[in-house]
């Protein structure tokens, strides 16, 4: 992580790529065409392909049978997380995701529940409009809405693009302890403990 945070390019083994100037006159352009034509670069490429074919070293991923592993910061279809302590939904209905959403695709209805607590009675994301910018996950104070790795969201109907039930961690997965924490923007950074100023308590 430290290596990524170091943005000092001067003494890090970086060097400028040597690129020839583009020819400006007709003669220069003609020389370049001749050079490229007779260098046989095409055969270099063909040779690499044939070599790997003979070695049987094939990089093509057989999608959809095979899939690439998705990085933790990838921003695909949203997930709604549950609390580890109670398995209850984390969302408190603060409305910050709704406010920050720049494509205005999140909406929620809230009401007071029978225990006088704020309850989210319904929640939608219109994935047809979502640009997957990640602001909602970043702003969420409860780490409730996050992005997941699920990028396959084709459908015949726009309404099917997303269902709240599909976003929410299934209860059996939760019970099995298999809910994954999000590590992208908005999640807790490794130095958080050191940065917090503790509030004194009179207990």
């Amino acid at each position, binding site marked *: 992580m430290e290596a990524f945070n170091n943005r000092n390019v001067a003494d890090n083994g970086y060097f400028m790529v040597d690129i020839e100037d583009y020819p400006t006159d007709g003669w220069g352009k003609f020389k370049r065409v001749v050079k490229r034509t007779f260098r046989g670069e095409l055969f270099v490429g063909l040779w690499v392909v044939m070599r790997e074919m003979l070695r049987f070293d094939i990089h093509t991923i057989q999608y959809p049978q095979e899939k690439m592993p998705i990085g933790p910061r990838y921003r695909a279809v949203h997930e709604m997380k549950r609390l580890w302590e109670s398995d209850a939904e984390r969302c408190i209905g*603060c*409305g*910050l995701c709704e*406010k920050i959403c720049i494509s205005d695709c999140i909406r929620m209805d*809230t009401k*007071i529940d029978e225990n006088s607590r*704020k309850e989210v009675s319904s929640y939608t994301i219109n994935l047809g409009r979502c640009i997957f910018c990640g602001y909602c996950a970043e702003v969420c104070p409860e780490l409730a809405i996050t992005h997941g790795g699920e990028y396959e969201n084709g459908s015949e109907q726009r309404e099917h693009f997303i269902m709240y039930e599909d976003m929410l961690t299934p209860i059996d997965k939760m019970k099995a302890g298999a809910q994954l924490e999000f590590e992208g923007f908005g999640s807790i950074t490794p130095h958080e403990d050191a940065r917090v100023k503790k509030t004194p*308590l*009179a207990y």
Partner: protein
Amino acid sequence: MSKININIDGKDIAVNEGDLILNAARANDIYIPAICYLTRCSPTLACRICLVEADGKQVYACNAKAKDGMNIVTSTPTIEKERRAIMEVYDVNHPLQCGVCDQSGECELQNYTLEIGVDSQSYSVKDVDRSSHDWGHLHYDPGLCIVCERCVTACKDMIGDNSLKTIARGADALDAGFKETMPKDAYAMWNKLNKSVIGLTNGTDVLDCTSCGECAAVCPVGALVDTEFMYKSNAWELTQIPATCGHCSAGCQISYDVKHTSINNPEDKIYRVMNEWNYVSLCGAGRYGFDYQNADASKDEASFNSAVAAFKKADTIKFTSTITNEEALILQRLKEKHGYKLVNPEAKAFQTFLKDYAQVSGKTLYGSDLKQTMNANFIVSVGSALKSDNPNARYALNNSLTVNKGAALYFHPVKDPIIEGLGKNILTVNHKPLQEEIVLYLLLDLFADKKALPSDIVDYLASFHSKKTVTVTETIKEKVIEIVKEKKVNKETGEEEEVEVEKSKMVPKKVSKEVEVDDNRLVSLLGMPENFDETLAKFLKKKDSFSLMVGPDLYTHPNAKNLARLVALIEKYSAFELTMIPTLTNSLGVALINELSDEVGKYTVGYNVQADYTLSSLGDGDIDMPAINQQEGTLTSINKRVNPTNAAIGYKGYVLNDIANALGLDAELTVDYTQNLPVEAGFIAEAFDNLPNHYTNDGEEVRGYTLSVQSVECGDEEVAKIDESLSLGDDLVYMANPVRQFNAFTNKATQLDEESGLYVSEENLKDSDFKQGDKVRVKTGNGEIVTTIVSDNKIAGDIALVPTFDAELNSEALFSGYRFAAASIEKV
């Protein structure tokens, strides 16, 4: 008031003498943080954050008056330290769940915490159980409460209900160490804060007040929230539509806060009503009665054609005054074009009253308004059930009593515990109905300049006076001189020696003597207390601004013409500034715009009135019309102000303008008529879109425009003598609504759930054979209705109230103009 010059943060400003530093700064766009101060109310001194340095001395800006040449600094390192400590203290034990708090986004604690930059906490105290309370229409969460006491102040100084107070918190004392280490003011503020929370004065856990909700509006945090609004929406999602309340003639500035109804329904819905609470206070109807829109209207061409046909057939248009000025003008134009008779009995009565008043006063309109009334310190109210006719007039009265240390006389037949409870300096006189004339003569007698008043009136007034001898016992203080020995130091010798000193002492002594006093028969006719003279003398001490409010009882009085002339005489020949309370929302506008008739013709079109063909904003007529919250237009208020209002929610049906266009008038929009409102009646030819609707930082009302008062030719000043034979009998009913109800529109609002029926005071009900819920037949000389008994603790005395807000009750059947009627009530 004379201007003085002060200097705040290097800026020279001219302010009125006696202005508070905070208000002077605000009026000149200089920022001083302040939490607990409410403009128009007395300073609470709870938050202490408005600390400034005036001429090198620390003072509270909300409490200190500006003095000529004063040099004020709003921020010094010491003050900044105090402010930082105060904000840290406010954050001690404050829950961090801003995400679920209704105030989040418009929370003053959030704002000031961020502004002062509180990023760490140095103080702590053990918390106590502060679980939330459901107070009925309000929800109180002491856990969020910062005890700024703004709710208490608003309730006491503005509303007059005195329903809230601070109660003991029961917390541990603060750690003694803080006293030494903390900034002084922050510690004092915390010490007080840690001892109190807000509670109810009535001792129960449910509010029993006039339910205005002003306390929740002024709450800087999410401690006091309207139960209905709770957790429905975040502040930032609501769009504020500036408007004018359409329920009564006060014409309060409001904003409808709208948002889509739900995820599935994108149509706008009103979630709450907010106001500029520093400058205007709402009543319960204004705050909670907002969803009275005509929702299901649609454009049905067949019913439109039938409406046009009905107008073509009709010779009379009957309407109420719950319409905009523009609609009133459309009706007037239709009358001019097609010769309709315009019938509106209540506006007609007010119009006639104004005309009779103009005959004597020489001007078309009364001279004062509620703002002047609020700033006056002696107020008289005649002929109005103030708390339900115009709640803002009641607030003005209360504010004068509490903040200006004013006094008031309230003349009305119905005993009103709310008005009586406004303070010690209000005398309520429950005279008999029809005695309003005597009241006005009494006012002339007591306050008019007898030298200027026409001599025949002076003579007539003198005929009520006689001399009588009474024995009075009074305590006088007698001066007694005694000689005492004292030890004193001789200045020359420096030695102590005994000196004899003469000392005078005041000793109380009771003396009884016979005095010849003036006996005023007007006073005894009204059944006023024996010691009225003394009370009045006490009330009038140090009073210099007088205000008179007259209400709808006068307009429909059988001798209304004479009353109007008397009222004009009082305004002319005494120090009283006059305000008239228009009967309904836009009675004043209608009275100025329309030529009204008395008789109804053969075929009548009714606008919000049941008739042969009915146009209704309530959705129960032959064709739908938009309600006030669905249309643009202007309303004329008691303050003689033409206030613009906007459409908060959509309306899909036809409007009056469409019908008028079909009948030969030509205007694209209803508000095209705004600039055509009659200039000769005092309106200004200004387009609707140019009308502003806001308050400035110094509290100036920049809303619409004020009507200009026109002078008219004066007639004579003759007034008729008192007709003492007028009387109604003992069993009486009075046409008045309960608090929070005005008309069928407030009745339609879901949050205003007042029960309809015959309102009988609790004490009266106890003595009678009736009980709550009994079905009774009320019979007067004019008609009869059958209804149920409702026990009402907001009135007292024997007179029962018949409300008008419930159209099904048909209460108009009982009355022939005057609001009182003799009635027999029997069980069915």
